[in-house]
């Protein structure tokens, strides 16, 4: 009996001593699949000690960032490394520990991409995924619009009547926002009864911070920004106004579904995926599912993607990164740092990209992945050519500012608030948030 008890205690002791590195990842999407595959390979490496093997955990996506905030603030040691994001780096920085990435990280990522995980000059994470926006369009419909004389004439007639400009159809890669608006109007059945789709576009207008990121690609191209170079708040300016008015005009004209004010990522994908919307400004991550014939048979194989249309200030797409960083309360920091160092290497990122992740990698690595992941070439190109982060959008209060803008601007789009009032309240609120 004594022997059995001793053996049991020994086993318990051994179990207690084996402290895996626990990593909290972004759940339920290609990021999770990619991270699982990458960790599986990491754990097989002979140089990884049994104590340093990585175990993954995932919360639900719903209110993920709030749950993470509560856990980090409570000083949890349940995970050693956790997700962070460009727009939340400042929010979580007080509860995380900066990391010094090895030289191999520079072989994998450009300085610009590494900066998406920096706060006050310190590196808080390995940038595993980059998100930006594509203008999705129905390639079959646009092809007909560019070649059918009757459709061309109708397009010009509608553009003249609704926008006051006699526009002609153009290739989507040449669009400015007027061309996008004219296309949205043309493919709206209530405006053009011959339209094969019910709506010309689908706008994500729910009071939600991520929808602001999508809209910022429009605002920025009109010259809008949070702050100027001196730090003065500039949202109440012509750039923001033009972007706000474009969305309102398109929504009021009925080019986007009636419930667009409650639409976010999933609803917009469902609308476009049904084949009843001709265009959509959406995150790059949506492409895989939309172009999958089993998941969205109505549009798969008939989707084109380009960078968002140009405005007077040029062509822009919001970018932000997701990444993994070190929990300051971790009890297994050495093991977690070892994993993060490896994760930032070209070898690990190649595994991650092949498994479905979307890292923005150095051109020589992307070239080796082009056959398996052609979309990463576009991701890298668009990020380099059109990517932007609003001035101040990595500050500690960035998330609150996104929330504030979402509340005020959706009020304007819904018609419950004037544009002047919404912009004034935004500027005042931002000043208060940035002052604290």
């Amino acid at each position, binding site marked *: 009996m004594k022997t059995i008890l001793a053996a049991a205690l020994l086993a318990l002791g051994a179990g207690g001593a084996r402290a895996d590195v626990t990593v909290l990842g972004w759940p339920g999407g290609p990021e999770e699949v990619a991270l699982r595959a990458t960790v599986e390979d990491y754990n097989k490496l002979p140089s990884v000690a049994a104590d340093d093997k990585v175990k993954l955990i995932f919360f639900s996506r719903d*209110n993920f960032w709030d749950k993470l905030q509560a856990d980090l*603030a409570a000083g949890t040691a349940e995970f050693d490394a956790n997700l962070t994001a460009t727009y939340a780096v400042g929010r979580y920085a007080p509860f995380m520990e900066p990391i010094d990435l090895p030289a191999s990280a520079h072989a994998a990522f450009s300085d610009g991409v590494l900066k998406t995980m920096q706060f006050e000059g310190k590196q808080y994470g390995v940038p595993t995924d980059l998100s930006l926006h594509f203008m999705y369009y129905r390639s079959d419909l646009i092809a007909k619009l560019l070649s059918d004389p009757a459709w061309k004439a109708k397009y010009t007639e509608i553009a003249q009547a609704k926008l006051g400009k006699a526009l002609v159809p153009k290739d989507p890669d040449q669009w400015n926002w007027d061309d996008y608006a004219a296309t949205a109007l043309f493919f709206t059945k209530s405006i053009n009864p011959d339209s094969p789709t019910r709506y010309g576009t689908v706008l994500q207008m*729910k*009071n939600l911070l991520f929808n602001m990121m999508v809209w910022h690609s429009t605002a920025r191209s009109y010259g809008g920004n949070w702050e100027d170079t001196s730090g003065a708040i500039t949202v109440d300016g012509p750039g923001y106004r033009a972007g706000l008015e474009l969305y309102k005009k398109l929504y009021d004209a009925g080019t986007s579904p009636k419930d667009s004010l409650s639409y976010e990522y999933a609803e917009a994908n*469902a*609308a476009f995926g049904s084949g009843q919307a001709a265009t959509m400004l959406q995150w790059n991550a949506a492409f895989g599912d939309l172009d999958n014939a089993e998941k969205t048979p109505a549009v798969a194989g008939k989707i084109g993607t380009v960078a968002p249309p140009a405005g007077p200030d040029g062509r822009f797409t919001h970018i932000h990164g997701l990444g993994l960083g070190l929990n300051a309360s971790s009890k297994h920091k050495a093991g977690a740092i070892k994993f993060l160092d490896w994760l930032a290497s070209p070898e690990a990122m190649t595994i991650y990209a092949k498994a479905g992740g979307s890292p923005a990698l150095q051109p020589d690595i992307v070239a080796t992945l082009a056959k398996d992941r052609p979309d990463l070439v576009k991701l890298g190109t668009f990020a380099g050519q059109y990517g932007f982060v609003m001035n101040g959008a990595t500050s500690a209060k960035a998330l*609150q500012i996104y929330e504030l803008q979402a*509340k005020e601007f959706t009020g*304007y789009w*819904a018609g419950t608030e004037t544009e002047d009032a919404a912009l004034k309240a935004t500027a005042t609120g931002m000043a208060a948030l940035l002052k604290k």
Partner: protein
Amino acid sequence: MTARADGWVMIAPLTAFLLLMLALPFAVDCIYAISRVSFETLRAPRIVGLQNFAIVLRDGEFWGAMLFSLRFALLVTAAEILLALALAIFLAPLLARFPWLMAPLLLPTMVAPALVGLMYRLVLHEFVGAVPYYFVLLTGDSPSFLGPDSAFWTLATIETLQWTPFALLILYTAYQSIPTEVREAAALDGPGPWQMLRLIELPLMRPALLAVGFIRFIDSFRVFDNVYTLTGAGAGGSTTTISIYIYEAFFRRNDIGVAVAASMILLAVAFALLTLVLRWSERPA
């Protein structure tokens, strides 16, 4: 051990549980309500007196959320009670004969409200939802269910559909428990069905009506899950309930002191309301 000591021993676990799970968090809340505190300073709140209460009471969004919650709760409570009362009376003979029918009627209350919200996000979606599909099929168009003008009514309808069965259960039980002799005695005076309902049955059901009204009012006043998953705070904050206001102050604005002060005000309102209802229900019929 004396009987008195036995009593202390027996009640000790429950007392400890209540102290740990209710009294301790309440004490922490009392401190936070009068402190400037955020996630970064959870362990070091700075006492600011009644400042948080002043901020809340001067905040137009707080009053907007209170008004939304009040309108929502009054409408939903009235609709649920009226529907449940009608169903309890009309279904009484059927339920008396087949009591098991109450089980399927209660099914909606068994679904988590957050799931109800997610379910209706699908059901009402113009391109994948069943309801818009039939609207388009029959009328050629589908109305906006979650637009700025209709979101309130859609949310109220969903809440009513989910919780009317709960009211039905209580009101049916109260209706069934009216003694047969009372009805027989009243019938001797020859009242019509409406007179029987208004003068005999409803007064006897008053405690149940008040109880269900109070429970449903408080429940729908502090509604969060299904509203949050369906519309969030709504365009321009148009569907911000008082619970969403508190949640956003806590998590989104990181103003924990303000969020706790707002929830203290909510607690005081609920307590006052409960006292009123209890006094009213004690009055003779």
